[in-house]
């Protein structure tokens, strides 16, 4: 169950990072319609509204101090809150240890040095803070490179880092690595998210909680 909680947290955090993409993509990467991209073109800012909506996720993680590995599936709902400056995340899933729920908050910061995103999520007794730089290319592929501070879990010191890779307006994946007790980072699996486009159109879709 703690493990399930952990998984849920992980998913929440990861999803938070990715958010801004959709708007940027909708605005278009090609400044002049009718031509391809050029070296001189500027990459549009990421739009965190990318994440708003209902997503399904599926992924597999290995055994670790965070819990028993295995496949997890579930849903994640993201909506804008507090005059649109923040994004609230609600997670419902099922993993190797059974059902789990989680909640989180996603924030975005645009600075002269770059764009940053932070995802704070809580699942059961596990709270994770994932923060890092956000950027992309002219084609509309954006990534959030995040890292957690070290935290204690089941007697081990854990640190996570990863890349939330936004591959389409309706899909992204989160590749995570884990370091245990100061050891080298190792793969912690990937989680794939798919946006529920039909659900998004339905009036009642935002009330998953």
């Amino acid at each position, binding site marked *: 169950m703690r493990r399930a909680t952990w998984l849920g947290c992980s998913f929440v955090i990861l999803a938070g990072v990715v958010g801004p993409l959709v708007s940027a993509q909708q605005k278009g990467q090609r400044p002049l319609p009718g031509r391809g991209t050029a*070296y001189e073109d500027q990459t549009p800012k990421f739009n965190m509204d990318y994440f708003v909506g209902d997503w399904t996720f599926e992924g597999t993680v290995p055994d670790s101090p965070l819990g028993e590995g295995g496949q997890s599936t579930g849903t994640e709902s993201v909506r804008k809150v507090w005059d649109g400056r923040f994004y609230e995340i609600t997670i419902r899933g099922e993993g190797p240890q059974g059902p789990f729920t989680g909640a989180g908050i996603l924030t975005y910061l645009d600075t002269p040095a*770059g764009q940053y995103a932070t995802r704070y999520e809580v699942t059961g007794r596990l709270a994770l803070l994932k923060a890092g730089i956000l950027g992309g290319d002219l084609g*509309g592929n954006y*990534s959030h490179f995040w890292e957690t501070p070290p935290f204690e879990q089941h007697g081990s010191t854990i640190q996570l880092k990863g890349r939330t890779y936004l591959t*389409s307006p309706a899909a992204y994946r989160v*590749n995570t690595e884990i370091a245990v007790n100061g050891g080298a980072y190792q793969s912690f699996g990937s989680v794939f998210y798919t946006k529920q486009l039909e659900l998004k159109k339905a009036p009642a879709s935002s009330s998953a909680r």
Partner: protein
Amino acid sequence: MKLAAFGGVVVLATVAVSGVSILAQREASATPTFNQDVAPILFNSCVTCHSPGQVAPMSLRSYEAARPWARAIKAKVVAREMPPWRADPRFGVFRNAYTLTQAQIDTLVAWVDHGAPEGSGAPPLPPPVAEGGWSHPSGRPPDLVVELPFEMDIPAQGQFPWFTVVEPWPFHEDKFIEAVQVLAGNPAVVHHMTATMRKLAPGTKIGRGPAWPGGPVLSNIVVNADGTPVYTKRNQGQRGQATVPVSESAANDPPNEALNGTLVIYVPPRGFQQFRPGVGKRIPKDSVLQWNLHYTMTGKPEKDRSRVGLWFQQVPLTVETLTRSSNRGDTYITQGQEVPEKVLSDPDSACAGPCLPVIPANEPNYAATGITAFQDDVTIHLMWPHMHVRGKDMTYLVTYPDGREDVLLNVPNYNFNWQLYYEFDQPVKLPAGSTLKVIGHFDNSVKNRGNPAPEKEVYWSEQSWDEMFTGFYEVSIDKKDRPMTAPVTARTGR
């Protein structure tokens, strides 16, 4: 892992003490173990990639490494996502097929379902693996390693033009290779990387200059005799010719001129190619190594310093292969209409390969066909479908002079991140007069999970958000088969 091993001991002890039973004993003995049943499967079909330093993110070379991933292994093999083999099994027999049999899948599933026990005794020895990410199946390190002459800085965002750098080979006689590998220094940013044999164009030399107009000043750039840079169309500069093919015959083969001399192309997830005994490629002594570099942005500043490794032939060579594809100069059909020559060969385009009409926004099934005719008897050794993120499927269809047709390869679920090559178990001979049709489809809809901008029309270039339609293949021209120069075995290090 200790837990699993402990669990296994408990099970065995329980059976023995209770004496219950032959049935229980049968069940216990039927439970697959890593050492006896699983390791041979993993070592045969998985550890080529799943070894330290190789392309896969985790190792499966030991029980300790594989046990945490047991459930993931089950999920992936049951879904037939791993090993990654994308060819339609109805067509072709391939030498490098890493598929699992149903019995092997059943064994892995049973192992996981019974707690993934390690088992008694020792596992078989895993196959050798070379240090540093080299992939020769013997574990033999390359005979020659050539490193990119500088560490490349890749910015966080934007677009990085395709560009080339060259460097001379550190040998002075023709070399024949039996294997070659481009080892990406930073796979996250290497969209693709080609190692090619070329000759410097007349009036040029290796110097220092901007990699492209306005780009960073680098060493190992082809410049004119007076030191001014030579830009090419694909570098988005004025026209120029930096390098030329290594042989005159290639110069007479304009559709494939750009491919002539290709040693190996790195694309995710592979950059290693090994030829069967007696087959290989020649590196002319007076050629240079040309790196064709295409980096992609990840969102944060990155660095790369990639390497090329060469394994020289150790047996006599009789067949020299060339990398080819349907290309400009061939016939193309898109959406049922033949593509006019002026579109295919648009001199102002940045197309890599044929220039085709744009793919409309939200088009879920854009069809393209390239048709190549062979004027000589040829032998096809392997095929490599190449498209970008809208790529959906690709089929190689041969029509013989008598009208018979054969599907050489069908990849029904193409994936940009899993660009595999498909090497025939027995090379396929095509008589003169045969035609090869490469048929592909593109999905520019939102249902394509790898499509970053379905609302945009898609152009043709080397940028991964634009498209390419290239059915690569390795071919030898039968009349040129002959004993080549003696093999080279001496090592040249760098």
